[in-house]
């Protein structure tokens, strides 16, 4: 198990390094430079590029960047907030984004589980049909359309929530974005839980447990739910990734000062250091999520380890 974890962690580190190289390469190809102010003369641009080390060759730049990164220095912003360190620019934004993302994820998964269980226990009943239709709709409609709908009805028409994010009331103004983002994980979880649960509940060990006279609640929770949760873990990584994309747009819609909106702005204004740092953070988050889930899966289900860690692929 330890060897398996170490191999996976080694692979993850290598992947991140390769990603940084690819990112530098892509940025070289990007049109324009960070200093596209028309008042700057060519000499001034050259001086600026020298100052930030942009005149060096790509391998050198990468080496310097990785070296600085390991000490927690992600460079400075070029034109969004000139000369301001990227790390401190991101700190508060990252916290906001992660908080809203996690809120949405936790609420979505818990509600989805409950819906899925109810639906499976009333298999083919009225509640089941309702839940199935809801999860079909919920997993199809992109979160930004949901967010726009919520914004229009609950914030604008009914006026229950603020129209834009206000950092003085972080809780009240994060309710709508959280709910909008939670719909998709909720629908997916509900759908998955329902299908797994129906399969589990019709298996022989559940029948055995029921014949032994174990209470219904205990059968559902201990015997049914526990075995449903194992395959559910594999769906978590794509769900979290979906939240990442969804949150970028939701942040724009609700004007939340998060990393998603900043990423797009940085791409459009060639602010290289922010782009690289955020792309790096996104990739690292993704790799860590997949890693944790694979290892978790290996711990829960030892058969996966034996077949070489190809969980859920």
């Amino acid at each position, binding site marked *: 198990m330890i060897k398996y974890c170490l191999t996976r962690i080694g*692979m*993850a580190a290598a*992947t*991140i390094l*390769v*990603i940084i190289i*690819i*990112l530098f390469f*892509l*940025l070289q*190809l*990007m*049109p324009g430079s960070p200093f596209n102010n028309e008042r700057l003369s060519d000499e001034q641009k050259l001086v600026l590029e020298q100052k930030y080390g942009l005149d060096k060759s790509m391998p050198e730049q990468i080496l310097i960047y990785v070296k600085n990164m390991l000490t927690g220095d992600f460079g400075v912003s070029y034109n969004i907030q000139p000369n301001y360190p990227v790390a401190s620019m991101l700190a508060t934004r990252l916290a906001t984004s992660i908080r809203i993302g996690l809120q949405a994820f936790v609420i979505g998964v818990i509600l989805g589980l409950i819906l899925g269980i109810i639906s499976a226990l009333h298999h083919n009943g009225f509640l089941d049909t309702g839940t199935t239709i809801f999860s*079909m*709709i919920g*997993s*199809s*409609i*992109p979160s*930004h*359309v949901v967010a*726009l*709908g919520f*914004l*229009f009805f609950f914030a*604008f028409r009914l006026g229950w929530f603020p129209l834009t994010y206000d950092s003085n009331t972080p809780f009240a103004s994060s309710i709508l974005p959280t709910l909008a983002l939670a719909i998709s994980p909720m629908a997916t979880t509900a*759908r*998955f839980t329902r*299908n797994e649960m129906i399969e589990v509940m019709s298996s022989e060990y559940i029948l055995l447990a029921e014949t032994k006279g174990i209470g219904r609640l205990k059968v559902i929770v201990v015997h049914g739910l526990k075995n449903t949760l194992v395959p559910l873990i*594999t*769906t978590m990584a*794509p769900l979290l*990734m979906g939240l*990442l*994309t969804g949150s*970028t*747009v939701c942040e*724009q*819609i609700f004007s939340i000062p998060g990393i998603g909106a900043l*990423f*797009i702005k940085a*791409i*459009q204004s060639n602010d290289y250091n922010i*782009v690289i740092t*955020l*792309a790096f953070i*996104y*990739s690292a988050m*993704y*790799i860590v999520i997949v890693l944790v889930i694979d290892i978790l899966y290996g711990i829960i289900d030892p058969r996966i380890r034996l077949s070489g860690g190809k969980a859920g*692929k």
Partner: protein
Amino acid sequence: MDNPRYALVGNSGIYKEDSFSSIPSWKETLIIFCKNKGAVIGLLFVLILVFFAVAGPNMNEYAYDYIQMDRQNLPPRIPGLEKLGIFDGTMNGIDMYALKGCKDEYYWFGTDALGRDLFTRFCQGTKISLIVAVVSAALNLVIGVTYGLISGYYGGKIDFIMQRIIEIINGIPSLVVVSLLVVVMSPGLMSIIVAMAISGWIGMSRLVRANTLRLKESEHIMASRTLGTKIWVILFREIFPNLLSSVIVMAMMSVPGAIFMESFLSFVGLGIPAPQASLGSLISDGYNHMLMYPYQLAIPAVFFGILMISLNLVGDGLRDALDPKQKQA
């Protein structure tokens, strides 16, 4: 067998010819698909939207990029329905058409801030979105199938290297790859399609590789290898047909994802450039005027939602009919 205690049971009920075909015939597939009500309704909606995407831009005299500064922000007005009190061109009780002096004109979905006919723009946008989705799904199919076949069939070192490459590409979130690539190639229809093709084929190649690994040990492949059949013939004529149904399902499932990605890009301003329209850019434009003119957002958003649901329903129906073993994720 004259003993009255025994009677010949016969096998006519069990061994029907068609009940043992391993690959479902097209007819069978069609029957299973048609039994799925959701999928049929979904298909119907998709076909209707495809019809509007093809015929819609020419259904009235306005072009999608025809700007009329004296016809700004007119609410929807549809002949026939206006008598029912909906889509009658009034806003807050005021007849905007009378106000602008164009009582005899009809803009079915209204006009936008530049006076462009939103119905034509909607049809044009649906067309662009569908083109993006179908072309990128087709590209994913070609790249993913080829990569998966080669990686799975050769195995060993080649497979190892190819799988590490996949792991690295897969490590970069598609949000990052697609948005960077679109900027590098400058926003436009082609660059969106290419960017999605580059990042979207991983799932397909994994599916194909896993099946190829299993199939290459089977006897008919061994036989043609022994006979010295060319590698491309083995890959595409002997392995690929066995995967066809799962590949079709996978490709169909990737269509809504592509439409979503396009609308996402349009929304953040990296999508189809200005005079052109896509469902994403229409929603994005509508969002900017949401508080004043809600219809500009509501109409494309509702149809976008219907399109996504329909495509997913069709994908699910196809999966159940073609490839029941493929697990729902």
